[in-house]
């Protein structure tokens, strides 16, 4: 600039003030949001993490006291924790993989023109709108051999020697909540992937067809690369969500039989609100948080290597 701003104070401290003010300005506008986020997210998070370094149990006579890493040492030797961690991994991987593949299939089906497509597209969201608690209850009943049909079907198919509840079998009980969770979560994947599919220009498929691509080739070489960034982000979000999702297991099996369906969020919940041991529950939560952080880091790094279009 050649022209001189008359309003700008010429003295050194004055100029410093002006520059400082300019730097500060955006943060002043942002401050209401920042304050709100701090209040509802960071402060509880920090308090929660601080619990994990305390002996904080409502049933012990003494008040909270700082005990350093003692909770984590106990965690390391806790067989129930490792069991729950394994179960969480199984639950999360199976749920997300099935939700994703079926959701992608659903999205591909809904992306083809057919009569009544709009209505189906709207209806498909319904499972997502059902409260998790109700989903769990309904599926628990479906698996119940007295009032539900599923056990009898499995028996008729020769999968069971007698129409027992799947949920009562320690070896397979986890599949009950997983099935319910897949049913519950397909629409979420279906709808987000459908939106991404619809953003791929038809012309690219036409160009692909002219270049000689078969349906499968245009899926792997055009559709998938386009969806990849979206897939990465939805899988990430769903994984975190499913790993923290306690409702279905809690209602359908309560972690049983014999802890075979105990997953970390349930373990945290029972530790905190049944045993009233907040310190130890906080330590488990922190462990889960760290695992999810690592996972998110890996996935976000992978996403950065994908081509953005």
């Amino acid at each position, binding site marked *: 600039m050649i022209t001189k701003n008359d309003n700008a104070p010429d003295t050194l401290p004055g100029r410093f003030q002006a520059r400082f003010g300019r730097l500060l300005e955006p943060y002043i506008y942002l401050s209401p949001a920042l304050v709100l986020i701090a209040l509802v997210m960071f402060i509880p998070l920090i308090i929660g993490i601080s619990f994990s370094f305390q002996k904080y149990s409502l049933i012990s006579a003494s008040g909270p006291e700082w005990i350093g890493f003692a909770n984590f040492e106990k965690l390391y030797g806790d067989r129930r924790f490792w069991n729950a961690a394994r179960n969480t991994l199984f639950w999360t991987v199976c749920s997300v993989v099935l939700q994703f593949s079926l959701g992608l299939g659903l999205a591909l089906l809904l992306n083809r023109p057919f009569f009544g497509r709009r209505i189906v597209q709207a209806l498909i969201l319904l499972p997502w709108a059902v409260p998790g608690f109700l989903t769990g209850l309904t599926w628990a009943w479906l698996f119940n051999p007295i009032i539900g049909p599923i056990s009898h079907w499995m028996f008729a198919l020769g999968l069971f020697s007698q129409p027992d509840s799947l949920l009562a079998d320690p070896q397979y009980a986890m599949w009950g909540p997983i099935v319910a969770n897949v049913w519950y979560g397909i629409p979420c994947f279906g709808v987000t992937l459908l939106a991404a599919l619809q953003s791929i220009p038809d012309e690219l498929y036409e*160009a692909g067809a002219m270049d000689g691509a078969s349906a499968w080739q245009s899926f792997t070489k055009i559709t998938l690369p386009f969806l990849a960034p979206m897939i990465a982000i939805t899988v990430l979000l769903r994984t975190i969500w499913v790993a923290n999702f306690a409702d279905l297991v809690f209602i359908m099996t309560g972690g049983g039989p014999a802890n075979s369906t105990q997953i970390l969020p349930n373990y945290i919940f029972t530790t905190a609100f049944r045993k009233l041991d907040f310190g130890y529950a906080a330590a488990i939560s922190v462990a889960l948080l760290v695992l999810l952080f690592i996972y998110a880091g890996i996935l976000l790094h992978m996403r950065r290597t994908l081509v953005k279009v």
Partner: protein
Amino acid sequence: MAKIELQNVAKSYAALEIMSDLSLTIEHGEFVVLVGPSGCGKSTLLRMIAGLESITKGDLYIDSDRINDKAPRDRDIAMVFQSYALYPHMDVARNMGFSLEIRKEDKALKTDRVQRIADKLGLDTFLDRLPKALSGGQRQRVAMGRAIVRDPKAFLFDEPLSNLDASLRVGMRLEIARLHRELGATMVYVTHDQVEAMTLADRIVVMNLGNIEQVGTPIELYETPANLFVANFIGSPNMNLFEGAFRDGSVVISSDNPVSLPDYDLPAQAVHFGIRPEHIRLAEGDRADCTGLVEVVERLGSDTIVYANVDGWGIVVVRLNGTADTQIGDSIGLHFDRAQVRLFDADGKAIAHAGQSPTRQ
């Protein structure tokens, strides 16, 4: 190379009929340009040849194979889209070699082909770039390269140059002409640009409302349009057309100054009188067929386009060579070159005159 044959082809979208009965034969190695007003079905026709659009009725043959029901991938035809439709997630080399990748061709052969064609199109330094990092002209060339690499039986172009600026367009036009000469492949080309159509085409197909109005070499269409539509559509500025009546060897447009046409031997009838702007000369006194008042003068450097208002006729457009000194407000006498006058009957069909063979429809 391939011969493409359309026989009594019709196209409807549900109840909406776009094309009722269209037949056209495109010979081996021919360059055919489709022109016509917007919405007349040029793209639809091209897409039907490509297989991207189904054919409602009629037959499509390539080299006497009926291919109505063949998928695009089995037709061995390449298409260059108006928007290029490059794969945005692949670099230029992969875009160009995609058809070979699909056919699982040998990698060395693929690289070699892509490299050779990229050299030819001046793309060799862009091979590892993504399409978004290219200019419009470069993208256009990649799209052409992608089509050429395959060595297809025929090329289809849907307004490939319409997104380029004028000077780039001229360059690419020459490029396409050169490609056609070198490859000798059958090409079908849709354009809105008169110059592209006139310069590139072996034959031009003029379409209107899903029908073919006339097929012919550029000069045939220009000199002997088969009907009013073609006369009006081909040529820029447009042919001058006036309604009038033929009587006693002359065309009467307004009550005074009849234009005598000794070449025509017709009964009295209503006619359309047509003459191209370059076939009108300035004339004085008796030599003038009519006089007009100059309303607009466009000086293009090479030509001067004069718009003169003739009483009872309307605007007459005159193209004069070089920079004429005609001024707005001048009163000018106009003389029509009799050999270049075209008459059309009341239905708009061309009327042949003595010494001229009837035009092909």
